[in-house]
């Protein structure tokens, strides 16, 4: 019969198993609930191998560390194989895109395919540059007074302009309406193709 394990050895084994389980859990990127299962699997394997421990060859901590590392590798490989069989090969942005390709997957994706676009943020730098150039061109064509009014509307709301004494409310609304028509005629606004009359 095997001698009972000492309290010191037991504490050492549990601590090593905790560390190994956390490390493996991080590696597998699994859900939080998997942590206890992994710890259990590692501990069972370690307890089964405890009879092979020889105190003359090293400490219990070193023995547990080696056994846990090997078992963690086996669990990770099994997990990887399962995942491949279920959802296909893992994809990395840094991996070449397709066999024989030199470009990585990350290089073949456009900004509009990016995560930011999926979350509603406009990531198209080219469209933004085009818009800025269009704005500069149209602003150059506006009359100086309209240009200043346009800039003022870019800074604050119409009611703030009324409060600043720029003009009466009705006059400012009339100017805004004029500005809208002016900008539309110069290409910044609703296009003809969008109207039912087209």
């Amino acid at each position: 019969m095997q001698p009972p394990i000492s309290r010191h050895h037991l504490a050492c084994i549990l601590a090593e198993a905790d560390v190994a389980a956390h490390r493996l859990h991080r590696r597998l990127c699994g859900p939080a609930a998997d942590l206890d299962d992994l710890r259990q699997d590692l501990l069972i394997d370690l307890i089964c191998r405890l009879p092979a421990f020889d105190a003359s060859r090293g400490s219990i901590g070193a023995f547990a560390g080696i056994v846990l590392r090997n078992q963690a590798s086996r669990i990770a490989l099994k997990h990887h194989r399962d995942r491949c069989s279920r959802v296909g090969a893992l994809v990395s942005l840094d991996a070449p895109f397709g066999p024989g390709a030199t470009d990585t997957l990350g290089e073949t994706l456009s900004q509009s395919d990016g995560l930011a676009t999926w979350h509603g943020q406009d990531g198209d730098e080219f469209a933004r540059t085009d818009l800025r150039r269009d704005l500069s061109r149209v602003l150059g064509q506006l009359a100086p007074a309209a240009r200043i009014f346009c800039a003022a509307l870019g800074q604050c709301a119409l009611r703030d302009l009324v409060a600043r004494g720029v003009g009466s409310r009705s006059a400012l609304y009339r100017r805004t309406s004029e500005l809208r028509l002016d900008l539309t005629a110069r290409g910044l606004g609703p296009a003809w193709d969008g109207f039912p009359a087209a």
Partner: protein
Amino acid sequence: MLMKHTAFTNARAPHPISEIEFCGWVGQAVPGDRLEYHRGFLVLDAFPVISKLADPDRKRLALLGTRAFWAAEASLVHLVQERIGPDHFAYIAIARPKPKAAAVSLSALLLAEQQAA
């Protein structure tokens, strides 16, 4: 020497158009595009007492006529008339090349406005 022909686009709105629709056409048109924005006798059709149009339509036409004149003054279109019959004309806007002007930086404009406020 080969003559270069340009394909001009003629458009006639299926129903009366408004100011903003006219401006939308001007903004999108390439030089040479034509839009018939009214058919009839514009001055009479837009005049309150003489016009046979309903009041909202008459006001819309008056605004449209003014806007077309504004676009011509702004060098965006040419305005021409084609005689269809006695006292009956097609009023046509022909898109002109967009006038060139020095570009103005929006950021600089906003900054100046911020400093002025």
